[in-house]
């Protein structure tokens, strides 16, 4: 029924997201445990400790939920482009489809963080007025190619 974009993320996306998630969770645990101990040491109000523990439990719960949902997100995330438009589809429960004319693309950014490099991957950001759309993980050469293609199309469309 909708235009069904065909291109997928790199296969490593799920493990990349999960590693990211674990790192995030570890940092959270360290921070909140530290805060908890500090609160204990300096005899802060009792409820503050409860708040810390509560936040920590919420964070871990959210992490588990998204851990389970990553394969689904991977399956649902698609992007594509033709000569005039860039398409993006995302979301698990709340789905979204986006159509951006190339004439309105302001900047294309190729990004390569440390973790992404470890996976031999990179990300692409497409910036329009007011909003940035991200393709979180692609193989490095694919991402480079996509970056060039998008820039080229954006420039060609501008000129017309």
């Amino acid at each position: 029924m909708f235009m069904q974009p065909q291109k997928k993320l790199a296969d490593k996306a799920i493990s990349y997201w999960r590693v990211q998630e674990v790192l995030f969770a570890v940092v959270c645990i360290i921070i909140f445990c530290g805060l908890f101990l500090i609160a204990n040491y300096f005899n802060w109000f009792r409820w503050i400790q409860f708040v810390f523990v509560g936040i920590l439990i919420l964070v871990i719960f959210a992490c588990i939920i998204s851990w389970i949902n990553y394969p689904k997100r991977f399956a649902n995330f698609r992007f594509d482009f033709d000569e005039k438009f860039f398409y993006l589809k995302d979301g698990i429960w709340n789905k979204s489809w986006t159509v951006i004319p190339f004439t309105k693309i302001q900047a294309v950014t190729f990004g390569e963080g440390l973790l992404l490099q470890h996976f031999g991957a990179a990300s692409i950001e497409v910036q329009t007025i007011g909003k940035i759309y991200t393709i979180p993980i692609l193989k490095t050469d694919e991402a480079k190619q996509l970056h060039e293609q998008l820039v080229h199309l954006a420039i060609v469309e501008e000129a017309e």
Partner: protein
Amino acid sequence: MKNQSPFFMVYRGIDLIRNVVFFYLLLFVVNEGSSAKWVDYGRILFYIGVFYSSVAIIVNWTSTKYLVDEQKIQKQTGLFTKKIQTIPFDQVEHKIVKRNWFHRLTNTVGIDYQLVDSSEIVKLEMISQTQLLDKYDEVKQDDSHLKGYPELQHDTNTNTTIFKPNKIQMIKASFTSLSFFLIIPFSITMYTRIDQYLNLEVHTVNFINRIQDDRGILILFIISLIVCSIMIGLIFTFLKYGNDEFLIKDETIFVKKGTLNTSKIAIEKHKIQGIMLKQTLLKKLFGLYELKLIFNEDDKSGMQSIYPYFSRKEVQLFVEEALPMYSLQQTMQRLPKQALVVRLVRGVVLLAVIWLLSFTIQKWLPFSFYWLAIALSLIVIAGVISSYLQTEFSIAGTFLHLKKGIFGNEWKILRFEKMIGLDMHSSFLQSSFRLGTICFKQYTNHVEEQYLRDISLESISALSRHYQYKTK
């Protein structure tokens, strides 16, 4: 890709020295012979800091590269976390050239490229190629025409039409704007002012006593009060809108507003992205419309209210005359029945929250909470049904008609080819009824998002296909 000028490192080095000179004096000159702990630690920190900063300067220079050609600017940053940013020249709105003392000394320049919404700036801090400067100007030259502000004058040209609001409309307007309520703050300030000099309280008490005794005086008093407030409302409205004037000349619409402080606006027709007819609940009763234009011009873009008290006939005439492509005769399509269900579900959830809340704060309420809850329920249900009945849309060639509102009403007519993008969403609740939300984006001086909620997925895909077709 090229590195920036190597002088950049020198410049940063000078900056660094300027920043650390205070700490140097403190640690090595003032406390020269000191054996205090903090001085020792401070010195170690100082060495680490200076070393880190100097390495950072060199790494920053070697890892930052740029490329500027006829079409685009590309900047690469980061050693471990690499980032390549590419911006087509046409998307660059402002170019800021910076030459401070060091730039002049080394014959370099710094250039900031800024995007339309100034959300992002690409900075080239120090580059030696001065010929780069012209590239942007070459590309931008053809559309850098800043037109002079046209003077509003009454030509007897055949292409000129003049509109002036009519008097009967103004009288209606003075009621809908509720400006007659101005009498309340007005009289209160008058009372307190006079009270400072004359003891009004005694007079007031006497007056109230006399009114209570005599019906005739009471009626007279009330009538004079009403007349007075209407007069004030009329005067206020006439002062504000009575002198408004619209002039349509070729491809430009001129608007003159105000009596005491007049302002003039000129809007070029081709820059108009859409129009909006707005009705508040009161205006609906009187059959009045506010006409707004959505447009993008350099300094005064956004939504410009043309005139808030048009009658249906006048607005039709104005639009036909000024913007003939925008037709107000249009049969529109309601949302599917499922939309009403979804909205009722949301309404019921809202009501549940309201009932729960009022139940918990019941103890502190001076009156029975049932009345409050029932009143709120009725308002919410009425709002839901009315919003369903009022939401309509249709496609007319290059235009999208969009009508929505809860108690008031907004009717937007938007041009497809002026939109900057399309987002479609479907929440869990919506997708279980095969519904979704479509969001049309426009750019004026900010991003304007026009939502159409709870529309069937089929219509969404039809709309998006039409959008793609029309922008091609």
